[in-house]
């Protein structure tokens, strides 16, 4: 099958009325979830997972991708209007977005963010579609030892790219790997650490773990707060004049602002986003801050940043949305998620019988095309829905925490039970929820923990296979393997050196 045939097959998977309708629904749901601080796309997609059980594979995955697309933009709505980023990917949008609101120009900033987000998503997806002919042979270079090393690198890189301390991130990564050994090992039919519980024979139910870490733990955290996360003073001010109908000439002006007056800002941020997306677990949370920082450092008249400079909004929003398709590349290629949201999407893929990895990427290229096409269509819908809804979604950011907590907990428990009608899975959900709450509270990396659970079996299986091919030197007997070993060593050594340097330079 040629790549063109694969592309056509991928298009065929997505261009069905049901799938298109689900993409539209997903974008709307994503915007609402993203605009609600405390929810965001990660818990939102985790909550949607059990509901997709009744859908066909590509209907379900398209819905999840669309929630991701909508959620990434939705975070900017509350960031601009209320100074509360709905998602970690929208933190930098508060820096210059909120000052627009204080000046009574919230709608302008939100429209810019919609256009930057949607066009960023579409362009990044199209670039990846074009890059598939390069990606396929590149990924074919990765054999079993390389695959094991990439998975290890996925865990060791976390302290470098997130705000967690090295020890805490590695602790949670290795603990996740350890818990992933529960159940049947890759090379044997023996039950490991199941304590005779049949429901554990396939290991810990991944969706229960995801819901526990990303939804139950978050709800326990948020249940402590009084009222809504937004402040009333800003919403009063910003609600004025935001619901007026926008003229076509205004919309044209927004496009001109981004693509004619600030094209370099947009392209630079998009490229940063795509590179960050390839790094395991980084995602929009890193790319939006990094793109904003780079833009601020390299822009002319940078002193206006932080006071309502539109370049700040463009940089942040195009960067967080640009990571959406690129974060799925390592997931499709190696089974290693490029962002926490991609980790939850992996749960959806596994639920629907897709096991991402080199085999899937090389043998079923049409699935990669279908993924990027689905995201691009999601970006297109976002443009229409986002411009129409512009500021209406802000009301979700004003939702009181006490209203939010019970339905999410009920959906988590019911959804987990619905997966396999197992009370053990619900118990896992509850225990991991409490455990996750403590992890969040004391800044232990939840992402590292989830990655550990995902990558544990990948590392074990490929390590065992590698040792069947040769001794330990097999990991350093080819240039690519040496490069990966150096990257792993670097990712472990650099944070330690930085720590020691910071300690002694105090």
């Amino acid at each position, binding site marked *: 099958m040629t790549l063109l045939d694969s592309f056509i097959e991928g298009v065929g998977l997505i261009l069905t009325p049901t799938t298109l309708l689900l993409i539209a629904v997903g974008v709307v749901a994503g915007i609402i979830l993203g605009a609600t601080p405390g929810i965001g796309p990660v818990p939102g997609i985790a909550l949607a997972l059990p509901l997709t059980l009744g859908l066909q594979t590509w209907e379900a995955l398209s819905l999840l991708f669309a929630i991701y697309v909508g959620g990434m933009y939705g975070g900017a709505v509350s960031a601009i209007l209320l100074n509360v980023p709905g998602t970690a990917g929208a933190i930098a949008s508060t820096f210059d977005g909120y000052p627009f609101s204080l000046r009574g120009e919230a709608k302008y900033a939100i429209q810019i963010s919609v256009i930057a987000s949607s066009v960023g998503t579409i362009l990044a997806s199209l670039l990846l579609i074009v890059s598939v002919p390069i990606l396929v042979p590149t990924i074919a270079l990765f054999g079993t030892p390389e695959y094991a090393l990439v998975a290890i690198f996925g865990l060791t890189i976390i302290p470098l790219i997130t705000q967690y301390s090295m020890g805490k991130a*590695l*602790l949670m990564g290795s603990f996740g790997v350890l818990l992933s050994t529960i159940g049947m090992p890759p090379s044997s039919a023996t039950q490991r650490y199941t304590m005779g519980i049949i429901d554990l024979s396939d290991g810990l139910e991944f969706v229960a773990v995801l819901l526990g870490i990303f939804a139950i733990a978050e709800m326990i955290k948020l249940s402590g707060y009084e009222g809504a996360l937004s402040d009333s003073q800003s919403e009063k001010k910003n609600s004025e004049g935001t619901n007026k109908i926008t003229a076509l000439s205004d919309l044209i002006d927004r496009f001109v602002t981004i693509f004619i007056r600030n094209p370099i800002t947009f392209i630079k941020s998009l490229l940063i986003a795509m590179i960050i997306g390839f790094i395991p677990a980084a995602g929009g949370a890193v790319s939006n801050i990094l793109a904003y920082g780079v833009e601020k450092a390299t822009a002319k008249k940078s002193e206006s940043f932080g006071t309502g400079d539109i370049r700040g909004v463009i940089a942040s929003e195009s960067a967080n949305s640009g990571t959406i398709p690129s974060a799925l590349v390592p997931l499709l290629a190696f089974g290693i998620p490029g962002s926490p949201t991609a980790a939850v999407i992996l749960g959806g893929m596994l639920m629907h019988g897709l096991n991402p990895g080199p085999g899937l990427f090389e043998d079923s290229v049409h699935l990669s095309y279908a993924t990027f096409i689905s995201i691009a269509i999601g970006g297109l819908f976002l443009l229409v829905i986002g411009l129409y809804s512009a500021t209406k979604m802000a009301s979700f950011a004003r939702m009181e925490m006490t209203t939010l907590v019970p339905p999410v907990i009920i959906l988590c428990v019911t*959804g987990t039970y619905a997966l396999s009608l197992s009370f053990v899975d619900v118990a896992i959900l509850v225990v991991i929820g409490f455990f996750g709450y403590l992890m969040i509270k004391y800044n232990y990396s939840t992402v590292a923990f989830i990655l550990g659970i995902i990558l544990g079996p990948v590392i074990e299986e490929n390590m065992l296979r590698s040792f069947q091919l040769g001794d330990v030197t097999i990991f350093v007997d080819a240039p690519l393997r040496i490069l990966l070993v150096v990257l792993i060593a670097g990712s472990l050594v650099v944070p330690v050196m930085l720590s020691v340097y910071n300690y002694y330079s105090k």
Partner: protein
Amino acid sequence: MNTEETILLGTVAGVSALMIITANQYDPGIALFPRIAASLTVFFAIAIVVGNRSEVFGNSEIDIIAQVNKKTELDEQTHSTDPENGENKPKIGKADPGEFRINKPVTKYQIPYTNFVVTHRATVSAMIVVYFALLWLSGVFVSSIAFLLLYAKVIGLRRNIFISLLIFTVCSLFVFGFWLETPLFRPGHDLARGLGI
């Protein structure tokens, strides 16, 4: 180190130690990988405890966000006073250990007939445990409604919000029941088997 953090680290290290010990009952081939993972986990747990004392590694701030955007700028911006009405903006800056980024008052709940005051987090955690027990006893439907009622009573939900949430919950349960064919009334025990539910 805080008591809760000690519990977290103790649980992680304890589970790992237990898994190292019980790995003996498996073939060396399949026991090796969990042993390595467990040993690394124990090693990192010890490193964190020792690091916290020596203040070198335990609290290291390897923060790419801080490198590209100085924390002081963020704090100045988020803590600045609104010139129009003099009120403070919400805090979004980096959290202190054990605290979250949200600068909102933490709500508390007094246990009836006692003088004990607990946070809402502890209350909700206890309610989740009760929810799970009810789930096992009476199935998804009854336990979910009971959880919502308990939550509304303890937290003090307004009437209109409670009714909206009740409608949402019942609709969601029907979606699971009718569309995904989830048994809504099946308990986790066998006591009601003779009743045919």
